């Protein structure tokens, strides 16, 4: 890419002629890499939690499960922790994603480095998209990989224990593939598509707030809930927020329509026909557009 090195004393050529060719995706790629350099917790946190989970499981397999003499109970003890491990890792990456998003457009203004980023030919759109791709692409992918790897190690450990006890391991491995598929489906539907407006909101607040981004992100929605409750004695806004975070009560009472539980059936048709999904994505796009526009005007704080 340094094709220009010998063309230094070039004359003032006409503007508008593109300099050295550079792929359009390259600034995006390097912007995402730089987010990972800066925020190493993005991959350290889920890996650390996975290690702790495996350590706990190791104690369980070596200690507790072996101490159970009833073989059926031993099998139950070994099969139980899979979804729990997945849940803990998913919760970790969710928390990491929330705090990352709250700091993404705030930290660069606080440490004045925004002046350095803006001195390079990277558009505000690329900058904001690279930041939102952390909670919406990088973290979900990482979650799937870490959870599947963790469960695989757990499977190997429990298989060893079961075989040692003379039990069949077939029942343990049969649902493994389906479990991973369910996990992927759950991550894509809930953690990416359904939660997208949450990250859009957090990024917008982080680009706007001068300090205490967390409070600005959390308090206005709570205030709206409180005012609505006091003024009209209704809880529509609270229900809306709950629906966004948890999928909502009506979705839970109609099993299968909303994949809140990683072990639900695959019902993409029902999911895709949920109006809340498309409204959420439209809101996310609007919030991100606002965050891009905001970054143009923002300097250091």
């Amino acid at each position: 890419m340094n094709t220009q090195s010998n063309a230094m004393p070039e004359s003032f050529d006409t503007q508008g002629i593109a300099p050295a060719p550079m792929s359009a995706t390259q600034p995006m790629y390097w912007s995402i890499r730089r987010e990972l350099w800066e925020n190493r917790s993005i991959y350290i946190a889920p890996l650390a939690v996975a290690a702790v989970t495996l350590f706990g499981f190791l104690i369980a397999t070596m200690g507790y499960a072996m101490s159970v003499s009833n073989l059926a109970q031993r099998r139950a003890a070994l099969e139980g922790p899979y979804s729990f491990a997945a849940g803990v890792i998913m919760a970790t990456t969710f928390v990491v994603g929330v705090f990352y998003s709250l700091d993404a457009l705030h930290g660069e203004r606080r440490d004045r480095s925004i002046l350095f980023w803006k001195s390079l030919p990277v558009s505000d759109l690329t900058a904001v998209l690279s930041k939102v791709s952390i909670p919406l692409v990088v973290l979900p992918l990482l979650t799937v990989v870490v959870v599947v790897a963790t469960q695989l190690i757990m499977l190997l450990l429990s298989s060893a224990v079961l075989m040692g006890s003379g039990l069949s391991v077939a029942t343990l491995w049969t649902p493994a593939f389906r479990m991973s598929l369910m996990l992927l489906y759950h991550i894509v539907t809930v953690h990416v598509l359904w939660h997208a407006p949450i990250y859009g909101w957090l990024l917008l607040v982080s680009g706007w707030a001068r300090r205490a981004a967390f409070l600005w992100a959390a308090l206005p929605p709570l205030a709206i809930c409180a005012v609505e409750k006091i003024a009209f004695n209704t809880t529509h806004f609270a229900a809306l927020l709950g629906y966004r975070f948890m999928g909502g009560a009506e979705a839970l009472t109609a099993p299968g329509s909303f994949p809140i539980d990683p072990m639900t059936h695959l019902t993409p048709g029902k999911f895709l026909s949920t109006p809340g999904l498309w409204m959420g994505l439209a809101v996310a796009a609007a919030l991100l557009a606002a965050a891009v526009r905001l970054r143009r005007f923002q300097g250091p704080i």
Partner: protein
Amino acid sequence: MTVIEARGLRKAFGTTIALDSVNFRVEEGRILGLIGPNGAGKTTALNAMLGLIPYQGELRVLGRDPWSEREQLMRDVCFIADVAVLPRWMRVSQALDYVAGVHPRFDRAKAEGFLAKTTIQHASKVRELSKGMVTQLHLALVMAIDAKLLVLDEPTLGLDILYRKQFYDSLLNDYYDRSRTIVVTTHQVEDVQHVLTDLMFINRGRIVLDCSMEEFEARYVEVMVHPERVTAARALKPIHERQVLGRSILLFDRVDRQQLAGFGDARTPSISDLFVAVMGNQAGQAPGAIR
């Protein structure tokens, strides 16, 4: 070729007018020093040129509108907006990787060559470097970009004299050629006196002086006047007068050098002396407009 052209450039923050309809033009190959007191509007002018803030009036940088075409403009324009804006968590090697990744005109080998002359290690993080070294790193990154316009806003603030001298030396020796244009603001005017080709004073959002350094040297004469000649010298309407060790030093604008030589030692004033004179007059302390 005109690199920067401003006509009626205006910017207000609330009721404060940071730039009051200024007009100026910077030609290719010039090194312009933008000098002014704090809050004069220097940084606002630079930010407008760099497309960092919206403005009123007309402004073209390299033929582009900086606000609406900032991304394209940044391929040909480099800036050091302040000392210590490099992210503190970044490693030197990461900074090289990143700039090489996003900037089509960055020459990595050149940057590494500049860094090799310093004591900066590739594995170091920015937070581990001294302020002077961070500036060296930033300058190495910027000088390796084949840009047409380089904008420096207080690039040497807080650095000791060795680093400051080295900064401008590298800029002139390793970077500047007649096809590049540099705009610099600084309070350390004595550092840039022999670097600049053009000089602009700005105060309260207005340009109060705009001349080339040749013009500056031709126009302004400072005379340390013999005590018995002070009254005669004052009759020639100096724009400023100050006392040093009991002697009067008078600063003249557009007065014949031969005529002044008779009053005492005549020499070209330093930019800072002229600055004090002009800004003092601006504050209404002495009569005589500068232009």
